[in-house]
């Protein structure tokens, strides 16, 4: 099946039936994945391909991702771009898809082993956490970091990796860790409660920018916003704006659009020539702040607003 | 004289069961009409159709000679027909006074009532106490929940409600079934008083002595239809029992004859 479909790819693109590309994200609610999806759609349109976007229903919905991959294969997708929930959960479905000649590319998160997919385009989340910690530590001018840590969904890989990266580089005293599911409301509530006893706080680690904004609202209500360094990760336009407004000190930008575009390009190329990409394409991270610190490579918010997503 | 409430050829089927099979019904003004019949004869179904609680498959219902269509119990209420259902239709978790006035609560006359639609709770409790006392039912408090009442006390609440609000017809489906000797007597008295107010009453009962004590006419129901209407003055209890069991039959000329044995067994 694989060969024939490869061959007929270019005909499809020209005729009625466009090349079908499947995209399976972790969820369809997280702004990050929405940005990724929209970018992939735009890129597919530009290349005259059809993109069908599916997703799990929540972080960790392996079963939903497996079903999505199965259904895309049934529907005749030539390429499937997938951001796996975790590195091993959906390998079975990926293997079945590849056995049928479908090109499978992992986006954002690697699989274990890496060669379970044809190619991987991803960021390093531990590194992102590390960068956040590095900046926060430096911004504290030699004070030891005393942090509130706002995590994502308990137990999610991304949440664990970013957290670990931050702890490694900032070496904070942990004044309280709360799960926020990356939601502003929960982050605000958690910070409010923690501030009742964490009176010595001087820094906040956040899993993403909504959580950072929640922390900011809670700190501001206690008139602590100026005294506390809030760090974050993601690089959405809202987040960069918050950095520009001085609400957040720093954010570590990721580039979902680039991942998506690259992935779609591979898919289009595969449909045209049957050439499968391989290996690991690492996308960048960039520290965005308006208060650069010597020794830390960073961009300002003007650059950030040009390159942000969402 | 046109009957106050009339029905012609009512049919109601539940799957294979035909609960009413061409039932006729006539209620004259100012009378107490007893409806008697075996268990499962279709009496409750008949009066449910008359009160809008069941929508018949066929047949027509007339109020004061005019054809009506009841889509629910509210429609019959609007025509002044008030019903005590066999299973009472009370809300167990609400108190007695609330149940009594359910669906026609009284508001206070002061601005609180007219503007803020506040209920006249005290007034309703007082009134509830009055109508229950009239029935001689001994209940501690009008704010007692119905689910804590004894079977007979509950029935009394349902009867009191119908008696208090009926303006054209009052229908009672076995109102004394769970009542004691004294209380039954009070209900019969009450029925008499309702008739004296000029309202006709339909009384379903299995208690022949009661029926013969109060009824002006007796409608005999059997196998889903009316088989006879007799007067307690001219007919004996035994004749009525015979009619409702099918041992006797009313001929077209109104005379009563024995059903011959072979036909009787054919069922």
């Amino acid at each position, binding site marked *: 099946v694989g060969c024939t479909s490869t061959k007929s790819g270019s005909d499809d693109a020209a005729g009625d039936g466009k090349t079908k590309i499947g995209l399976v994200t972790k969820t*369809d*609610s*997280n*702004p990050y*994945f*929405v*940005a990724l*999806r*929209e970018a992939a759609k735009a890129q597919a349109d530009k290349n005259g391909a059809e993109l069908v976007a599916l997703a799990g229903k929540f972080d960790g919905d392996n079963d939903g991702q497996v079903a999505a991959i199965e259904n895309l294969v049934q529907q005749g997708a030539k390429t499937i771009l997938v951001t796996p929930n975790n590195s091993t959960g959906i390998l079975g479905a990926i293997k079945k898809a590849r056995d049928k000649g479908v090109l499978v590319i992992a986006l954002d998160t690697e699989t274990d082993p890496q060669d379970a997919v044809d190619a991987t385009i991803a960021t390093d989340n531990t590194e992102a956490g590390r960068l956040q910690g590095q900046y926060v530590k430096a911004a504290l001018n030699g004070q030891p970091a005393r942090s509130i840590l706002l995590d994502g969904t308990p137990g999610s890989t991304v949440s664990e990796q970013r957290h670990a990266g931050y702890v490694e580089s900032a070496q904070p005293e942990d004044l309280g*860790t*709360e*799960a926020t*599911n*990356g*939601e*502003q*409301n929960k982050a605000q*509530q958690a910070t*409010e*409660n*923690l501030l*009742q*006893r964490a009176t010595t706080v001087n820094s906040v680690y956040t899993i993403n920018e*909504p959580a950072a*904004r*929640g922390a900011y*609202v809670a700190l501001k*209500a206690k008139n602590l916003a100026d005294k506390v360094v809030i760090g974050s990760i993601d690089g959405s336009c*809202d987040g960069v704006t918050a950095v520009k407004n001085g609400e957040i000190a720093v954010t570590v930008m990721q580039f979902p659009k680039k991942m998506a575009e690259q992935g779609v390009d591979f898919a289009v190329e595969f449909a045209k020539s049957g050439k499968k990409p391989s290996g690991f394409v690492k996308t960048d991270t960039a520290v965005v702040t308006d208060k650069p610190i010597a020794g830390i490579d960073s961009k300002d918010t003007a650059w950030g607003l040009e390159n942000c997503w*969402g | 004289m046109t009957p106050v409430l009339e029905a012609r050829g009512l049919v109601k089927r539940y799957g294979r069961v035909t609960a009413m099979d061409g039932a006729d019904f006539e209620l004259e003004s100012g009378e107490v009409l007893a409806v008697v019949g075996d268990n499962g004869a279709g009496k409750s179904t008949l009066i449910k159709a008359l009160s809008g*609680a069941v929508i018949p498959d066929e047949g027509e219902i007339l109020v004061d000679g005019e054809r009506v269509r009841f889509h*629910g*119990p*509210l429609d019959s209420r609007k025509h002044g027909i008030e*019903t005590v*259902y066999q299973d*009472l*239709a*009370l*809300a*167990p*978790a*609400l108190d007695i006074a*609330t*149940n009594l006035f*359910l*669906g*026609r*609560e009284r*508001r206070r006359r002061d601005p609180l009532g007219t503007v*803020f*639609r*506040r*209920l006249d*709770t005290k007034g309703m*409790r007082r009134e509830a*106490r009055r109508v229950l006392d009239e029935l001689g039912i001994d209940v501690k*408090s*009008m*704010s007692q929940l119905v689910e804590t009442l004894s079977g007979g006390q509950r029935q009394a609440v349902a009867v009191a409600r119908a008696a208090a609000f009926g303006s054209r017809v009052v229908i009672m489906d076995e109102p004394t079934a769970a009542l004691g000797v004294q209380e039954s007597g009070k209900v019969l008295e009450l029925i008499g008083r309702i008739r004296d107010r000029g309202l006709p009453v339909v009384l379903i009962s299995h208690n022949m002595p009661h029926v013969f004590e109060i009824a002006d006419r007796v409608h005999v129901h059997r196998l889903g239809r009316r088989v006879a209407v007799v007067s307690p003055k001219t007919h004996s209890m035994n004749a009525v029992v015979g009619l409702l069991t099918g041992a006797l039959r009313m001929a077209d000329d109104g005379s009563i004859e024995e059903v011959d044995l072979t036909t009787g067994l054919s069922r």
Partner: protein
Amino acid sequence: MTTRVSPSEYILRTPAIGPAIALVVAVVVFGLTTDTFLNVDNLSLVVQQSLVIGTLALGQTLVILTAGIDLANASIAVFSTLLIAKLAMTGTDGVVALLVGILAAGAIGCVTGGLVTGLRLPPFIVTLGMLTIVTAVSRIYAQGQSFPVTDGTLGWLGTTQYLFGQIEVTYGMAVMLAMFLGLWYALSRTAWGKHVYAVGNDPESARLSGIHVRRTVLSVYLVAGLIYGIAAWQALGRVPNADPNAFQLGNLDSITAVVIGGTSLFGGRGSVLGTLVGALIVAVLRSGLTQAGIDNLYQDVATGVLVIAAVAVDRFSRGRQR
């Protein structure tokens, strides 16, 4: 033989007494075990944190009293926040945006109510469907973005004032109190309230008693919808940012508050006072456990245990009656 009810019996018959005991116990325990829980600031925070779920739970109470359940309430409120914020962003006057948002929530409530009464579908499944639909529509509408709110009216409920120069209160608390009083009055002092209880207690009896069962149920979903709209306003007061991903567990949280508050899921029994207490209990648990320095996951374990315990306390405080 009088129609007066003795004080002790009145207390026993008040369905909120069990939850109230549970609340007091929780407050006392956290007061004793932590130094920060019982300070005025913190107590005020707890109340503020209970406002959104509390408001959602008020609407939920109405629905549950009719033997229904509303799984879509939080998603409706979230949709409403998005509508309000996006309108305000595109220049619509704050008050107008707010009204549109609240009315939209009411309209969605009406649709739900219409499906429940018109087609006689089980509320669980209708609201589950609505949950899926409204959530998806919110996400489509937001296109992966969230919308910060700057208009004063929209964030007004979060404005703090100081009573006696000490106690931090917000307008949101006042709105909550007003809504609670209004609902309490409507449920216990008007015919509509009696009908709501009757319909939930025994719909067939209510029908035979001449109550417009469908109309009553429909009105309940409409009012509940409007309340969810106000919950959206409360949410914007708390977090001046409309996010399609907010309050994903708001439905279960609000049901928890209602049930802890002693309202029966089978309908016809319960009170808004209980719900208020229930919402506070949940907020107290979350805050108190944080003050006690308990880790997130262990907090979850404790919350689960305590929620069950709170209902058990309620059960036993009333068990004497049976």
